[in-house]
C-alpha cells in the first residue's frame, strides 16, 4: 500500500459543526413535545439534617401542578457503583445544600418552580462537616453514620468520615531516605473546580402507552444512564430507551446521572412527557465538582538528579456521596509518580465524606491534583540541584518497556521526545517574545505529564450499502470532543474511502451497540479499535467476494482510494458497489462487520507492587507529554497572566490533527482556570459562588493568546487504530504545576495552593 491516506490524518471539519454553527443542532433543552410538562426540583437548604416531615398542601394548590414526588413515592433503593449510598430523592436525611428532596411536574416552568418553593420541609438541623479538616477532626460528626451497613463492591476499611483508603508500595522508601542527596517535602492543596460545561444538565422523559419511556438527556453515556434509571427506579432496561441529543460539553460532569431518574419518575407519575432543565446555579449546587484535595509529598534524589524515593499521602474531599470517588482516588494515587522512574515509592490515599456536593469525575480524574504536587516537587528539586528543569525530567523520564506505578508495562512512550520538542521550542521562542511590561516579572515554567487512554467495553457495527457506501454504528456519545467525526474517519481509512462515504448513526440504546462512557480519554483508542476491527472484518468479506468475482487469490488484491478493489499490478478491478449489489441479492447476503471487546491491557503486577483496595485492576495505554508556559506577574498586585503555552503530546497518531489541537487548547485553558481563577467556595455548608458572576472561568482575554500544540507521532501505539492514543484529558494535567513553577521562576515564591489568585501570589511574594 502507498502512504496516501483517504481520511486518517486529515483535518476534516467536524461533521456536526455546520448544524451547530447554523443554530439547527438540537441539544436536550431544545426538544419540546406535545403535552410536555416542566419539572422542578426542591434542593435541600441545609447541609445536614433529618427530614421530620414534608408538607405538600400548599404546593398542590398551585394551578397547573400535575405531580409532586418525594422519596416515599419512589422505590426504597440505595445505588452507587462502589458504595450503594445514594438515593434519587433524599430519604430521611439530607447531606448537602442542593440535594434533591422533592420534585414537581407542572404545565409551565413557572408553576413548577413556584410549587417547589411552596413545599414545606421540617428539618431537624444536624451538625455538618464542610472541609477535610472538619471531617477528619476527632469526634467529627459523621456524614453517613450508617456507612458500615451500605453494600460495597469492596470491603475496604472505613474510619470516621473516611470511606475508602488505599495504598501502594514499591521498593522501600524508608530504607533509602538517608542515601538521598536532596529531599523536598511539602503539602499541596487544590480546590473544587466546576466543570462549567456551557450546557446545563437537562432531561426529557417521554412515556408511551406500552409502558416504555424514552429519555433524551445531557449524558456522557446512553447505556450508563439507562442502567442507572433502571437501578434507581426498578424499571427493566428493556423499557428504557436512552437517546443522545447533541451534548454541550461534559468534561466528566455528565458522566453520572443528573436529573434523568427524577424526570422519568415524574413522567411515569403523571403519564406525560416531562422536561427538567437545571438553572446554572442549581447545576452548580446539585451535581458534581472536581475533588478538592490535600496532598503531602516527599521526594528524594541523588546529586545527578536521579530520583530515589517518594512518599505521598492524598486526601480527597468527596462530598456527601461516594459516586466515583474510589476510582478517582485510585487513579490519582497511580499518577503520583508521574511519567518518571523512581524505584522506591509509597502512596497512601483516603476518600473522605463531607457535607458538600459530590465530587466526581472531571477531566484528569485525580491526576491534575497528584501532578500538581509531583511536578511542583520536581521543580523544587531542580532548583536545589541547580539543574535545568527539563534536564531533570529527561533524566528520569519513562521509556517504552518501563513499568507504570503498579507494575504494568508501558508499550508506547514518547516522553523524552515530548521533553525534547518542548526544550527546543522554549529555547527558540521565549527570548523572542516581547518583554514583560514595566513592573511585571516574567517567568518560565515547565511540567511533564502523563495519563491513560482506555478502559472498559465497547463495540461497533458496520454494513456496506448497495451503492458501496458504509453505515457505521457505535454507542459513543459525542460530547463535543469530536468522535462523530473521528470514528467515521477510522472506518473510512480502513476501507480507503473518503469520509463522506461513511454514514454515522445517532446513538440510541434500542439500536446502538454497547459502549461504556465517553470518559477516560478512551474513545479514539478503545471505540476506535472496535470500529477498526469491525471494518477490517467487513473488508475481509469485501476482499473475499472480490477475489471470487475477479477469479484470483485474495492475497493478490489491494484497495484503491474511493471504493475499488484491484488486482495488484493489473487493470482488473471491481467496485464496492458491484460487490455489494451481488452480495445483497445473490451471493452471501449483506456485507457487515462487527467487533466487541473490553480493554485488555496489562494488569497490575503483584511482584512489583504491593497494592490494597484499588478500584480497578488495570489501566489503559499510557500517554505522555510536556507543557511549558511563560507568565508575567505584577509584583504590586500579584496578578498573573499566562502569555504563551507550548503543549507537546505523545499522541501516537493524530486521526484528525485540527480536532486534537482544539482538544489540547481547550484543556490548556481549563487548566489555566484551575491554576489561576477557579475555586468553589463554601461557607457554613453553602456554596457561595454558584454562578458565572462569582465563579470565574477564563474568557477570551484571560486565556493565553497563543497556545502552540506539538503532536509527537514518534511512538505509535501498536494496539491503537492507526497507532492512535487518546488526548481528551492529558493536556490539562500539567498546566497548573507549569504555571506555579513559572510563578516561582518569576518571583521566587513557591505557591503550594491553587488557584493562584492575585492575593495568594502577592502574599507569596510578600512573605519571601
Amino acid at each position, binding site marked *: 500500500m502507498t502512504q496516501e491516506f483517504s481520511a486518517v490524518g486529515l*483535518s476534516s*471539519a*467536524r461533521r*456536526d*459543526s*455546520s448544524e*451547530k*454553527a*447554523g*443554530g*439547527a*443542532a*438540537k*441539544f436536550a*433543552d*431544545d426538544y*419540546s413535545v406535545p403535552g410536555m410538562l416542566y419539572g422542578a426540583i426542591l434542593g435541600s437548604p441545609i447541609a445536614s439534617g433529618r427530614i421530620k416531615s414534608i408538607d405538600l398542601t400548599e404546593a398542590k394548590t398551585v394551578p397547573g401542578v400535575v405531580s409532586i414526588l418525594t422519596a416515599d413515592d419512589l422505590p426504597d433503593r440505595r445505588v452507587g457503583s462502589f458504595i450503594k449510598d445514594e438515593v434519587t430523592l433524599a430519604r430521611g436525611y439530607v447531606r448537602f445544600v442542593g440535594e434533591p428532596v422533592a420534585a414537581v411536574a407542572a404545565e409551565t416552568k413557572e408553576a413548577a418552580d413556584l410549587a417547589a418553593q411552596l413545599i414545606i420541609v421540617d428539618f431537624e438541623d444536624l451538625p455538618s462537616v464542610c472541609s477535610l479538616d472538619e471531617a477528619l477532626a476527632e469526634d467529627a460528626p459523621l456524614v453517613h453514620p450508617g456507612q458500615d451497613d451500605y453494600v460495597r463492591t469492596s470491603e475496604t476499611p472505613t474510619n470516621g468520615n473516611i470511606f475508602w483508603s488505599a495504598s501502594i508500595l514499591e521498593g522501600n522508601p524508608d530504607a533509602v531516605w538517608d542515601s538521598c542527596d536532596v529531599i523536598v517535602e511539602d503539602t499541596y492543596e487544590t480546590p473544587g473546580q466546576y*466543570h*462549567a*460545561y*456551557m*450546557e*446545563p444538565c437537562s432531561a426529557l422523559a417521554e412515556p408511551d402507552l406500552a409502558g416504555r419511556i424514552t429519555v433524551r438527556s445531557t449524558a456522557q453515556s446512553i447505556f450508563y444512564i439507562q442502567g442507572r434509571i433502571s437501578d434507581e427506579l426498578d424499571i427493566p432496561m428493556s423499557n428504557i430507551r436512552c437517546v443522545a441529543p*447533541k*451534548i*454541550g*460539553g461534559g*468534561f466528566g460532569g455528565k458522566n453520572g446521572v443528573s436529573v434523568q431518574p427524577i424526570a422519568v419518575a415524574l413522567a411515569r407519575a403523571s403519564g406525560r412527557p416531562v422536561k427538567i*432543565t437545571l*438553572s*446554572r446555579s442549581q447545576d452548580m449546587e446539585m451535581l458534581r465538582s472536581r475533588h478538592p484535595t490535600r496532598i503531602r509529598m516527599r521526594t528524594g534524589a541523588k546529586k545527578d538528579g536521579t530520583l530515589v524515593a517518594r512518599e505521598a499521602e492524598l486526601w480527597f474531599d468527596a462530598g456527601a456521596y461516594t459516586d466515583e470517588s474510589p476510582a478517582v482516588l485510585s487513579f490519582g494515587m497511580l499518577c503520583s509518580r508521574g511519567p518518571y522512574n523512581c524505584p522506591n515509592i509509597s502512596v497512601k490515599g483516603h476518600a473522605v465524606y463531607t457535607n458538600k456536593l459530590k465530587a466526581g469525575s472531571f477531566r484528569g480524574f485525580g491526576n491534575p491534583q497528584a501532578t500538581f504536587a509531583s511536578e511542583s516537587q520536581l521543580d523544587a528539586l531542580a532548583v536545589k540541584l541547580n539543574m535545568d528543569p527539563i534536564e531533570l525530567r529527561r533524566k528520569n523520564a519513562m521509556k517504552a518497556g518501563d513499568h507504570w506505578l503498579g507494575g504494568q508495562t508501558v508499550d508506547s512512550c514518547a516522553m523524552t521526545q515530548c521533553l525534547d520538542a518542548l526544550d527546543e521550542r522554549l529555547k527558540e521562542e521565549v527570548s523572542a517574545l516581547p518583554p514583560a511590561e514595566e513592573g511585571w516579572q516574567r517567568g518560565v515554567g515547565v511540567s511533564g505529564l502523563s495519563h491513560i487512554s482506555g478502559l472498559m467495553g465497547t463495540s461497533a457495527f458496520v454494513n456496506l450499502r448497495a451503492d458501496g457506501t458504509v453505515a457505521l454504528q457505535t454507542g459513543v456519545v459525542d*460530547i*463535543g*470532543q*469530536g468522535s462523530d467525526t473521528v470514528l467515521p474517519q477510522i472506518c473510512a481509512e480502513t476501507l480507503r474511502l473518503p469520509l463522506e462515504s461513511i454514514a454515522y448513526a445517532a446513538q440510541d440504546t434500542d439500536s446502538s451497540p454497547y459502549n461504556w462512557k465517553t470518559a477516560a480519554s478512551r474513545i479514539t483508542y478503545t471505540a476506535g479499535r472496535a470500529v477498526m476491527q469491525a471494518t477490517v472484518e467487513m473488508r475481509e468479506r469485501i476482499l473475499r467476494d472480490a477475489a471470487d468475482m475477479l477469479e484470483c487469490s485474495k492475497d493478490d488484491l489491494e484497495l484503491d482510494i474511493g471504493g475499488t478493489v484491484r488486482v495488484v499490478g493489473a487493470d482488473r478491478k471491481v467496485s464496492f458497489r458491484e460487490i455489494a449489489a451481488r452480495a445483497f441479492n445473490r451471493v452471501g447476503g449483506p456485507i457487515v462487520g462487527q467487533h466487541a471487546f473490553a480493554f485488555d491491557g496489562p494488569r497490575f503486577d503483584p511482584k512489583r507492587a504491593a497494592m490494597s483496595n484499588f478500584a480497578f485492576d488495570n489501566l489503559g495505554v499510557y500517554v505522555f507529554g510536556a507543557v511549558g508556559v511563560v507568565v508575567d506577574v505584577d509584583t504590586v498586585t500579584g496578578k498573573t497572566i499566562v502569555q504563551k503555552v507550548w503543549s507537546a503530546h505523545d499522541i501516537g497518531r493524530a486521526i484528525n490533527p*485540527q*480536532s486534537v*489541537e*482544539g482538544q489540547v*487548547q*481547550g*484543556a*490548556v*485553558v*481549563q487548566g489555566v482556570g484551575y491554576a489561576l481563577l477557579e475555586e468553589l467556595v463554601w461557607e457554613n455548608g453553602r456554596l457561595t459562588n454558584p*454562578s*458565572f*458572576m462569582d465563579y470565574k*472561568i477564563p*474568557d*477570551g*482575554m484571560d*486565556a493565553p*493568546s*497563543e*497556545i502552540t500544540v506539538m503532536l509527537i507521532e514518534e511512538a505509535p501505539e501498536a494496539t491503537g487504530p492507526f497507532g492512535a492514543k487518546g488526548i481528551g484529558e492529558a493536556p490539562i494535567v500539567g498546566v497548573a504545576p507549569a504555571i506555579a513553577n513559572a510563578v516561582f521562576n518569576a518571583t521566587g515564591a513557591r505557591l503550594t495552593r491553587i488557584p493562584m489568585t492575585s492575593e495568594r501570589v502577592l502574599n507569596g511574594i510578600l512573605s519571601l
Partner: protein
Amino acid sequence: MTESNDIPIRLTLNKSLKSVFCKPTETLLSLLRDGFGLTGSKRGCNQGLCGACTVLIDGKPMRSCLTIAATCNGRDVVTVEGLLENGKLSTMQQALVDSGGVQCGFCTPGVAIALTSLLREDPKPDRTKIREALSGHLCRCSGYIKIVDAAEAAAEKAGS
C-alpha cells in the same frame, strides 16, 4: 392563550415581520425559544454572563436573556438562524466550521453573532480586538484560539 396583561408587539425577526403577544416579564430568549421555536439561541446561564443567547437587536449584539421581549416592539432582531444566507452558512459561520472553532457547539450561536457584528464594525480586526469582542462569550471547549482564527479567516475572506 393570551391573558389580559399580555403585550402585543411587532418586530422584524430574521427579516420577516412578526406580531406576537408577550407576557410583561417574558425575556426575548424565552420568546425566541418557546414562542418561535428558534432554539439556536442558547440558555447557558440566564444571567447575561455566558453570551450563548446573544442576538442582534437593531444590528447590535445583545443578551436575549436580559432583554424583556416587550421592549423589542418595532425593532429588528436577528438570531443565529437568521445569519444564514440563502439557506447556507454565512462567511463567518463557515469560517467557524473550517477553522475548527466549533466543538460542543453550545456557545457557537452567540459567538457567531458577536463576530458577525465585530466584522461589520471593523472588517480587519487584529487578534486582540477579536479576543475583546469574545470576552463576553464563555467557551469551555476550545480555549478560544480557533475561534479567533475563524474571525481572522472570515475577515480575510470577506476582504478578498
